[in-house]
Each structure stands twice: as C-alpha cells, then as structure tokens.
C-alpha cells in the first residue's frame, strides 16, 4: 500500500484525492489521503454489505435502553 500522500501532478488518471474534514467545533481541515484510502472510504459509503452474524445476534439480544432527552 502506498504511503505517498500526494499524487504525481502530471497524471490525469490519478487526480489528487483529499478528505475534507469539518469538525463540530467550527474549524475544518483538508488532508490528503492516498487514492487507495479514498477508494476504501467510497466503497464503505456506497456499498451496502450484509450485517455479520455476530452483529445480528448482538442486535437481537441487546437490552432496550430508553433515551430521555431532558
């Protein structure tokens, strides 16, 4: 896996990927990530995966908590 944080500027196939990160405190930062890292993020967001058996089992037996927003 590449650890390079920038892409070659003369490559039209590999445009620079950035992750813009806006934090709740009101400040923001932009951080370069590798194409591979950006792709894994896109895949995670866009590809629905089945829940694992462990997740299903835990969901089935989990306590029911009551949320009280007072």
């Amino acid at each position: 896996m590449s650890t390079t944080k920038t892409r070659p500027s003369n490559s039209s196939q590999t445009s620079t990927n950035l992750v813009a990160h806006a934090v709740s405190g009101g400040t923001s930062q932009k951080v370069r990530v590798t194409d591979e890292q950006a792709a894994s993020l896109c895949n995670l967001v866009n590809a629905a995966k089945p829940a694992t058996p462990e997740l299903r089992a835990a969901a089935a037996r989990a306590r029911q908590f009551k949320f009280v927003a007072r």
Partner: protein
Amino acid sequence: MAEHLNRSKVTASTIVPLNKIHDRKSFDCGKPPLNDFLVNRALNSPLGSTYVLVSDPESSEIIAYLTLAPDIISILNNQSTKSLAGVIKLEYLAVDLKYKSTGIGTDLLIFIMREVAAYSNISSVRLLAIEPLDKEAERWFVGRNFGFEVVYIPDRCLAISIDTILNMDMSDEP
C-alpha cells in the same frame, strides 16, 4: 477491586444527557484519559455531546457514558467537489469497572448504531466512525465482528456504513 455484576442483575435502563447532577468523579472505567474527559471536559466539550447510562432518570451514578460528534467528510479532486457523506463519530464509549463484563458496552454500541441509523433518515449521515483510544479499545471494537472497517477520515478510524447497520435488524425471511 471492583465487584463485577452479572448481566441479569444490571438494571441500567436509561440514557440521558450528561448534566451537573451526575457523579462524574466516582466514575472509573480504568482508563485515565476517559475518566479525565468525563470529569473535566465532557460538560462543555466542543468535541460533541455526552450521554450517560443510569439506572433511572433521577440517578446520579454513571454506569457508562458515550460522546457523539457530527462530522462531515467529502472526497475532493482537481475537477470537482463531491460531498460524500455525513459521519457521526463515536468519540468515547466507557463503562464503569463495576459493570465490566456485563455486556453493557456491546449493548450500548448496538443502541448507538440504531440511533445513528434512525438519524440518517433525516440527515446525510452515512457512516458511524470510531477512533479507538488505544490498541486494547481497537481490539474490543474489532473483536465484536460487527463489520467495522479501517478508513481514514482523515485520521485512522473504524467505520461502518448506515446501510450495514440497517441490515442488522432485517429478517432473513423473504
């Protein structure tokens, strides 16, 4: 040494926003940074909102706490800006040592996943992300086998998509 309780004897049932009536100083999860955050910063933290698990809404004893923060991530390139997703970050999840090994942490994680999934119906949230405090915490989250994956947004996180979370309560029946 903390007395451990059986799962069936734990009466924790209510999650409320942290406020001044809660006994923050008595809480001990065994991780000083998490204890310190609760005592000194959680009430007014820009990191996010902190909620506590209590036995009933009037109880001051904190059984566990969690801190959630909204976030926004986008993938950008030279030609365009595409807003990718909203993210809810689970900044902290901590259970008092007295309640260790009762399953509360796992149950709280399921609760959080359901709440975040419900919130996604009225927002652009597409991911739940976690930045584990340390390797032990990361092993705990990964060890659930819930499907968390390593991503960089921009720091290294464990994340799971809302679509996957929604599938956890779906029946296998056609």
